């Protein structure tokens, strides 16, 4: 039988907000579970997901987040959002972040650091964006050991030949 090229999905993670960290992790994990090759490229704020000092401190701010409704907290407030005037109060970002983490923990969703470990152990390849790393002044030792390498955009394009690419 002729050698068939395995399906390959590449995710580009460009956001470091708590809610934007999860799409690639969840879909990447599902892909690996279904026998699909996975490559993840962390660029710009997305690097927070694999930066030792940042990975456990990802946050979500209620400011400007119109989908973040009070009903998410189990309040019978229907479509009412978190009032902007409350969102700017000190502690609201910490509260929102804590709340989202608590919600996900209840569902059995692991924290980002553990997810990165799971993906690595399941065979995902993970790379940091060289330009961002240079811009932020980061070094190899600043990253989780699961990050395979820091590569250029051109390297990423080369290694994802034929892959389906998802930008987050």
């Amino acid at each position: 039988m002729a050698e068939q090229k395995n399906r390959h999905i590449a995710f580009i993670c460009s956001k470091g907000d708590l809610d934007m960290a999860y799409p690639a992790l969840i879909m990447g994990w599902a892909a690996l579970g279904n026998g699909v090759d996975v490559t993840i490229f962390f660029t710009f704020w997305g690097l927070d997901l694999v930066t030792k000092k940042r990975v456990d401190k990802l946050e979500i701010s209620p400011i400007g987040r119109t989908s973040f409704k009070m009903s998410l907290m189990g309040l019978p407030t229907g479509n009412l959002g978190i009032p902007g005037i409350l969102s700017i109060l000190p502690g609201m970002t910490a509260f929102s972040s804590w709340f989202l983490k608590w919600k996900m923990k209840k569902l059995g969703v692991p924290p980002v650091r553990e997810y990165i470990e799971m993906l690595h152990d399941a065979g995902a390849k993970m790379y940091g964006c060289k330009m961002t790393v240079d811009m932020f002044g980061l070094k190899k030792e600043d990253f989780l050991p699961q990050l395979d390498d820091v590569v250029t955009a051109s390297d990423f394009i080369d290694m994802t030949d034929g892959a389906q690419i998802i930008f987050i």
Partner: protein
Amino acid sequence: MTVDLTQISFNEEGFMTDPHQWTKEIAEELAKQEGIETLTADHWKIIDFCRQVGLASGKAPTLRQITTGTGISTKDLFALYPKGPAKKVARIAGLGKPEGCV
């Protein structure tokens, strides 16, 4: 001895539709179809756990439930059932496709 799979009902994706028809011999046969020639003790540990969860809840466990429930690491799970353990394990254990995301 070969197992007669024609008496067993499967859905269009190849998953058994009645987990009670499952036997260890069927599991061995399905494993061969998935490219796993021999089922070792570790393979069985995972299958047994899936059977337990599957029969109790009606749903095949997710990969994370398997690793936390059996103590088998993610790395080992993917080595035991290479290239797509989620579907492979559920299929060999005679259960449906896992429904959870994690």
